[in-house]
């Protein structure tokens, strides 16, 4: 299996990626953590007045949503370009190409873990009692990784042939931001649309993280199944696309 065979390469590529990201400015590392906080502040000021929120910790509610969404959007959009931006590693040496996608998503996963650490600190600071349900966080985040990696596989291979896919994906992410419960409470969704609304795995992830971190309750077991199932299904479909298109990567990048 390539993950074990190439684990050293994956590790070094991931670390190099993080180094470059955080080295580029003195505040590099701090910025990446401050950024979501500012975003939260702005959205909180704007939206807490729009919706008369019953949620107690609306600021934390928003921050959980943003932190979740950031991994989805950064992970997929950087995963998408991971093949095209490293042409040398595609057409001058042979390495399994999914390694490029995997290490890109992995470095975003690590960034995301750091952002969640900040979230944990803020949760405690604002007096939220972390309950034992927080222990469910790691496996859920791993399922999240699976979903983002699967999507990135499909996107990165399509992006080799369709170079405007990033524009389309950006618009899609904009829409997804507002189609997920980040800046509004889920209760504003009309009852009759709720079952469709809840089909979005990112929504399920956000609500799961809120349940286990803020509310200290265990989400419905069906959600875990749904996340795992959609992750595996996406992986099967996107791997198929990737393997089909991978044969011509070296000619096109």
């Amino acid at each position, binding site marked *: 299996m390539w993950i074990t065979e190439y684990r050293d390469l994956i590790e070094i590529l991931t670390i190099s990626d993080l180094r470059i990201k955080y080295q580029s400015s003195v505040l590099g590392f701090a910025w990446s953590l401050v950024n979501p906080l500012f975003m939260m502040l702005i959205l909180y000021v704007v939206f807490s007045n729009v919706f008369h929120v019953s949620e107690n910790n609306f600021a934390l509610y928003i921050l959980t949503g943003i932190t979740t969404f950031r991994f989805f959007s950064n992970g997929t959009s950087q995963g998408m370009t991971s093949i095209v931006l490293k042409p040398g590693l595609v057409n001058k040496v042979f390495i399994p190409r999914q390694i490029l996608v995997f290490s890109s998503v992995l470095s975003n996963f690590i960034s995301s873990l750091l952002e969640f650490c900040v979230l944990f600190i803020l949760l405690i600071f604002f007096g939220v009692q972390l309950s034992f349900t927080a222990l469910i966080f790691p496996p859920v985040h791993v399922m999240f990784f699976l979903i983002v990696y699967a999507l990135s596989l499909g996107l990165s291979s399509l992006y080799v*042939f369709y170079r405007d896919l990033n524009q389309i994906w950006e618009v899609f992410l904009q829409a997804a931001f507002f189609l997920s419960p980040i800046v509004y409470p889920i209760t504003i969704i009309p009852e009759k649309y709720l079952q469709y609304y809840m089909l979005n795995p990112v929504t399920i992830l956000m609500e799961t993280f809120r349940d286990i971190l803020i509310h200290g309750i265990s989400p419905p077991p069906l959600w875990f199944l749904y996340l795992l199932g959609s992750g595996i299904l996406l992986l099967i479909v996107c791997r198929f696309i990737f393997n089909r298109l991978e044969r011509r990567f070296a000619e096109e990048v």
Partner: protein
Amino acid sequence: MSPDSTAQSHDVSILAEHLSKLFRIPHERKLTIYEHLVGVLRGSHQSYDEFLALDDVSFSVRRGETFGVIGPNGSGKSTLLKVLAGILYPDNGNSKVQGKIAAFIELGVGFQSDLTAKDNIFLYGAIMGLSKREIKDRYDEILNFSELKRFEHMRLKNFSSGMVVRLAFSTAIQTDPDVLLVDEVLAVGDEYFQKKCMEKINELRDNNKTIVFVSHSLDSVNKLCSRCLLLDKGKIVQIGETSDVIERYHQLTREHT
């Protein structure tokens, strides 16, 4: 040498059977979904120029042999090397390479100018197939060979291009492959460094490694390779003793002009 190892040295290291590679070069390159949509709406079909870069190429290389590939520009030499390395998939035929392959098609692939020489040695070493352990063990040797010890912690963007190449070659040569595919990359650095590179290649050859050597320099092909393959327009013109093949190449060049 024991009879056993003599027998082994005659093992086939590379076997290529009926390799063909067709490149399609579209007249109008469509790289976006938008362009494809417009194309479909106009009802125009994508038209291609087809270009057979490799045409039914078969040969074998014995273990421990240094094998040259020569031919004019665009004859398919690099395509052949990329197919052997697994970078390109052939449209027809197949190739088998025994053991660990290292392809020197371009030196310093994956170098990051924002990282230090040290980080880049680890990065590039891993890309060339070394484990972390192996890179650590060979780290000093890499720096010594490149003569860049003083600049260990300097970022690559402050290196001169000659220094970058030295660092790349010194790292790459440590990959310790069974099969080495070299594409014209040795013509780098100053004369002194080139000599060092050649010595290193000779060392590998003496260690019974298989080397496929693509070059325009007939001189170095003549010096290094026992057997040689001449390609023209994707087809094999001749395989055999290097001196004979080079002779044939000269003849071919005269025919063309």
